[in-house]
């Protein structure tokens, strides 16, 4: 530092030049080792259990060595396809309803009613502090109490409808609530990073209506945050166990636990498959979100 000031003599400069590179090289080496250590610890923490699980799932307990029968049996396991399809349905349903509900709400909040933002934020973040088991206990009580107390009312019809049929709407609706914090946070971060006020006004100024502004200008600009919200919601639903189990449904997560009670290796291979699906989704979203343009047909 001193050597860089005009008052430093040539000697000082030379001394610094001689010592500088060596010192900075040592510092760089130390920093590099520190980083490597942190990465190693993180790697062991995150990848270690996965490697262990994979190793467990391919061990041949009878003859020794390795075998992949657990993976070969995954797709033919009884109940696998039903559970998988149910989870898929729940995930897609939750994502669609969450986005249909939250995207317009968030845009309205930011554009038209910013003073209500703290209220909506608090409401949306509530599921983070209320354990799912508490939520589902409350829902369970209402579902048990409702049909008797509300007999003959449209509410009774509604309560019956969301529990019957092939699609468990009651689960989807509950998952919409559970995923609210993630949907809210993702969309909020996206909206804050884009000047939606100016974009909206620019669109209106050019003659676009609100629908066009939303669909052609705002949503494409918020694509990454919408995809993030969708991914987080889907991942949460795909791995959710508590609510589904208490309400006596058997999506993928419940199926894995059930399978684990009889076939440990199958259960582990299913868990790894579940992770793989999540990673693939993340990759897909990164690819989609990474595209910085949309093809607009002018």
């Amino acid at each position, binding site marked *: 530092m001193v050597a860089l000031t005009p008052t430093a003599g040539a000697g000082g400069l030379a001394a610094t030049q001689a010592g500088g590179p060596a010192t900075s090289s040592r510092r760089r080496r130390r920093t590099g080792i520190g980083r490597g250590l942190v990465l190693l610890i993180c790697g062991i923490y995150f990848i270690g259990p996965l490697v262990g699980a994979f190793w467990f799932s391919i061990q041949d307990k009878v003859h020794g060595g390795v075998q992949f029968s657990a993976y070969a049996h995954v797709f033919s396991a009884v109940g696998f396809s039903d559970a998988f399809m149910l989870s898929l349905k729940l995930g897609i349903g939750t994502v669609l309803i969450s986005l249909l509900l939250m995207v317009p709400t968030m845009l309205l909040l930011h554009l038209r009613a910013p003073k209500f933002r703290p209220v909506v934020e608090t409401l949306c973040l509530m599921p983070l502090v209320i354990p799912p088991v508490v939520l589902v206990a409350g829902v369970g009580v209402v579902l048990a109490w409702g049909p008797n107390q509300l007999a003959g009312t449209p509410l009774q019809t509604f309560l019956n409808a969301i529990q019957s049929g092939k699609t468990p709407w009651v689960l989807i609706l509950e998952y919409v609530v559970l995923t609210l914090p993630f949907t809210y946070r993702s969309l909020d971060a996206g909206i804050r990073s884009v000047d939606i006020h100016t974009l909206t006004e*620019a669109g*209106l100024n050019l003659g676009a*209506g609100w629908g066009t502004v939303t669909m052609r200008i705002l949503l494409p600009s918020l694509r990454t945050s919408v995809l993030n919200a969708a991914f987080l919601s889907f991942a949460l639903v795909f791995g959710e166990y508590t609510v589904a189990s208490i309400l006596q449904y058997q999506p993928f997560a419940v199926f894995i636990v059930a399978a684990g009670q009889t076939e440990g290796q199958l259960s582990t291979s299913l868990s790894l498959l579940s992770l793989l699906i999540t990673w693939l989704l993340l990759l897909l979203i990164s690819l989609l979100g990474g595209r910085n343009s949309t093809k607009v047909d002018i």
Partner: protein
Amino acid sequence: MSSIALESLETGAGTTVEFADVHRVFGSTHALDGLDLKVRPGELLALLGPSGCGKTTALRLLAGFDQPDAGSVLVDGEDVSRLPANKRDMGMVFQSYSLFPTMSAVDNVAFGLRLRGRGAGDRRKRAAELLDLVGLSEHLKKFPHQMSGGQQQRVALARALAISPRVLLLDEPLSALDAKVRAQLRDEIRRIQLELGVTTVFVTHDQEEALSMADRVGVMRDGRLEQCAAPSELYQRPETPFVAEFVGTMNRLPGSMVPGGVRLFTQVVAVDGVVPPAGSDVRALLRPEAVLVEPADGQPGHAMVTTATFFGAVTRLRMTQPDGQEILADVGSHRAADFPAGAQVLISVLDRPVLVRPESESTAATVPGRA
């Protein structure tokens, strides 16, 4: 740059705009307090004023992003106060970069044309022409994040012009740009505006921008129009103390009225406009360039140089008189060496009529740095 047939752009040349006793209140703030203003067909009118004076509110009312609490906004005599923004046919360039981030430059420009049902070929041709007009024919396919701020604002200008706006609205479009690009784009906007003859309202807090670009400048203060006049008139003959102090830099020199004019230093100078009675104390409003200085060369001086600030062609001298009164004078930079700090100087003023104000008249304005 542009070789397009400008007549094909069919802009809103000839459109008049009028604010008739417009009021807009936000809570306890009267953003517009009875604004009356007429914009003539084809002219570029700049609204100039300090922050919070209501100039942006006026522009937003004209664009349709807000509605007046009272009064009317008229375009070609038609009251558009309640007309939605997307029905007004006004092209606007915003202060912040407003290009749609997921569209290329050509798509941005063509967006408004698509909404108007123009055919694909026509849209593309016209968008390309307009980008050529603003000097960006090489950047048709670029996305906003691949362009500089100046380029983005050019595309925004092309996009605003593409829809053949009745009125072009410019909301401090140059404020986010660096000085060189700002000066360049300023000239281009004016050139294009003159070529197209589109009625333009330009909001700015930069007086240099307003004075250099506009046909007329409206100076606003506290939601009202203080004065609206051609730049030279505004500069030479400010009607209110606020305008005098806000536009450019003004000395307020104490003087006394005598027969034939106002006595300033050793001179008697004619008075411009209303002449106060002889014997009254006044303040003469003098621009720094109207103050002449000479080295005292050993004589008792009128003032002492305290600082000299280099502005390129001219150097501004800040001087203090024996009574503590400060006075500013511009001298050619080639003469600046004659006036070092601490030098005694003799002061005179240009022999032309000056504006005077009664001594008692106060100003609420803060004098900006320089014009």
